[in-house]
C-alpha cells in the first residue's frame, strides 16, 4: 500500500525552501511551487511503480535524478534566483524528505 501523500510531500518541500530562498522567494515561488509538486508526484509514482515491480531501484534513482535536473533547469531559467540558492534550497527540501521517502520506497533514494 502506498504511504506517500503528494500534497504533504510538496508542502514539506516548500516549507524548507522558502527560508533559504529568502528575498528571492517572491520571484521564485511560482516556479518553486510547481517544481515541488512535480518532485512530490515523482516520489509517489515511484513508490507505486516500485510496489508494482515495474521499475528497479537503479531505474528509480535515474528517474529521480532526471526530475531533479529538470527542476534545476526551471529554476535556472527563472531569472535572478542564483544557482547556489536554488541548489541549496533543493537540497534542503530533499534532505527533509529523506526518511519518509526512503522508508516508503524501501531503499535509499535520497
Amino acid at each position, binding site marked *: 500500500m502506498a504511504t506517500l501523500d503528494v500534497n504533504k510531500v510538496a508542502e514539506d518541500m516548500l516549507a524548507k525552501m522558502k527560508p533559504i530562498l529568502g528575498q528571492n522567494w517572491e520571484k521564485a515561488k511560482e516556479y518553486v511551487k510547481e517544481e515541488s509538486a512535480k518532485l512530490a508526484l515523482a516520489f509517489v509514482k515511484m513508490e507505486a511503480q516500485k510496489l508494482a515491480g515495474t*521499475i528497479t531501484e537503479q531505474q528509480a534513482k535515474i528517474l529521480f535524478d*532526471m526530475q531533479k535536473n529538470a527542476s534545476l533547469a526551471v529554476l535556472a531559467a527563472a531569472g535572478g534566483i542564483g544557482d547556489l540558492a536554488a541548489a541549496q534550497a533543493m537540497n534542503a527540501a530533499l534532505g527533509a524528505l529523506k526518511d519518509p521517502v526512503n522508508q516508503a520506497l524501501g531503499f535509499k533514494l535520497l
Partner: protein
Amino acid sequence: MVRGNLGWRVVLCSVAASAVFLAGCPVPRYDPKLEAASTSWKAQVGRFIAEAEASAGTPSGEYESEGNKQFYTDMQNAIGGQIAQTRAVSGSPRAVEIMELLSKDIENLRKLHESNGKSGLTSELGDPARAAIETELRALDKLQSELRSGSDNG
C-alpha cells in the same frame, strides 16, 4: 576660438558619456542558433523515445541496436558542440547550465535504456524521462525568449 573649444568639449563629453553608458549596458546574449538547436533537439528526442517505446520488447528496441546507440552519441555531440559555441561567444551562462543538465539527462536516458536489457525503453521509463527532458528544453526556450525580448541578460 573660445566658442570652437567649447564645441569640441561638448562633443568629447558626449562621446565619453555614450561610452560610459554603453559599457554599462548588458551584452545581448540571445542566440538564434541555440533557439533553433533546442527546437531540433525536442523533435529528435520526442521521435526517438516514441519509436523506442513502440519497439520495446523487440530486437530493434534494445539499447544494443546500432541506431539506438548512435542516437545518444549524436545528441551528446550536438549538445556539447552548442555548449562550446555558446561559451566561445560569451553567451548566457544560464543557457550553458541548462544545456549541461540536458546533457546529463541524455546520459540518464541512455542508462535507463541500457538498464532494461531486452525489454528496451518501455513507457514506464520513457514517459517520465521525456517529460524531464522536455522541461529542460522548455526552460531553455523560456530563457532564450526572455533574452530576445531584452527582459533578461542571461
